[in-house]
């Protein structure tokens, strides 16, 4: 069981993190779409801290003997899920960037040819 002191310190850190996150979202530095998962994480941890015995209950319900094993296991799954979603996001970005680059280059070519044709006429 966590001591009261540890609970208070962790709750404070989480609240600070949460405030920082909200500030970034307000400034539009993080896309809300990708920030939802980061908003949910500290909220879930806060709930765990504030309700004593919750973790033990969940571990028992999942048939996991050691609470810490469950924490590591769920944390690992969470991290994998986030990294995977990043891979999807990067792939999409790279594809958009490729198409944009090609479009810009072909339009620049068309403009250049137009200018060349005009200067030849003069």
């Amino acid at each position, binding site marked *: 069981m966590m001591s009261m002191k540890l609970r208070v310190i962790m709750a404070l850190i989480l609240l600070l993190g949460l405030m920082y996150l909200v500030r970034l979202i307000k400034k539009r530095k993080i896309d809300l779409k990708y920030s939802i998962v980061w908003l949910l994480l500290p909220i879930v941890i806060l709930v765990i801290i504030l309700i004593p015995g919750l973790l033990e209950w969940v571990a028992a319900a999942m048939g996991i003997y050691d609470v810490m094993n469950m924490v590591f296991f769920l944390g690992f799954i969470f991290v994998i899920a986030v990294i995977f979603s990043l891979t999807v996001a990067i792939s999409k970005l790279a594809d958009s960037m*490729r198409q944009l*680059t090609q479009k810009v280059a*072909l339009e620049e*070519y068309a403009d250049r040819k137009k200018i060349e044709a005009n200067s030849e006429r003069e």
Partner: protein
Amino acid sequence: MKKLIIIPAYNESENIVGTVRDIEENAPDFDYIIINDCSTDNTLEICKQNHFNYVNLPINLGIGGAVQTGYKYAREYGYDIAVQVDGDGQHDPAFLQQMAEYLEEHQLDMVIGSRFITNEGFQSSALRRVGIVYFTKLIHLLTGHKITDPTSGLRLGGRKVIELFAENYPKDYPEPETAVTALNHGLKIEEIPVVMRARQGGVSSITMTKSVYYMVKVTIAIVIERLRGRSKAV
């Protein structure tokens, strides 16, 4: 018939003038477009000075993105035939006319120039040939078609191929994969013998360490490409 040669160029300042002159001399029926893939040397300046026909990519896209730009160019300017010739002087433009005629005569969608029909000219290293034979076998297993030189960059395509590649083209090491893509779409591919030269300057993009990535990536790409084809057919 409007015929286009796509020349992807990344840091090809040593070769680009020779490549273009070679084309003008030996493939006079073809137009060409250089795709400068954001070279860090003076490839762009050389193109400007010599009044070459070039498209300048503002960001480096790699070989796949550069060649695809060429196919998009071919689509936009109404070309009937497009062929990729590397800027390093490995491909002899003298074969292009022959390939174009073969495509028209046999009503094909794609003609690949193969080094391994008559086994003349530059044959690549023994180790690379092992890789090439592996891809030939893999493609044969998955599609039932025999392509003796699946890594050949010398491939000439008709309108259907231009449309297909303008929409979808792999980012890197595209040759074996795109052959399977074309076969999946029911396009007709044949090979004719060509003689290739050893590269005249610059270095191959495929180093020893990259060749492992090459084998794995292209194998997965071919298998996935085949799965795409099946799901489409269902």
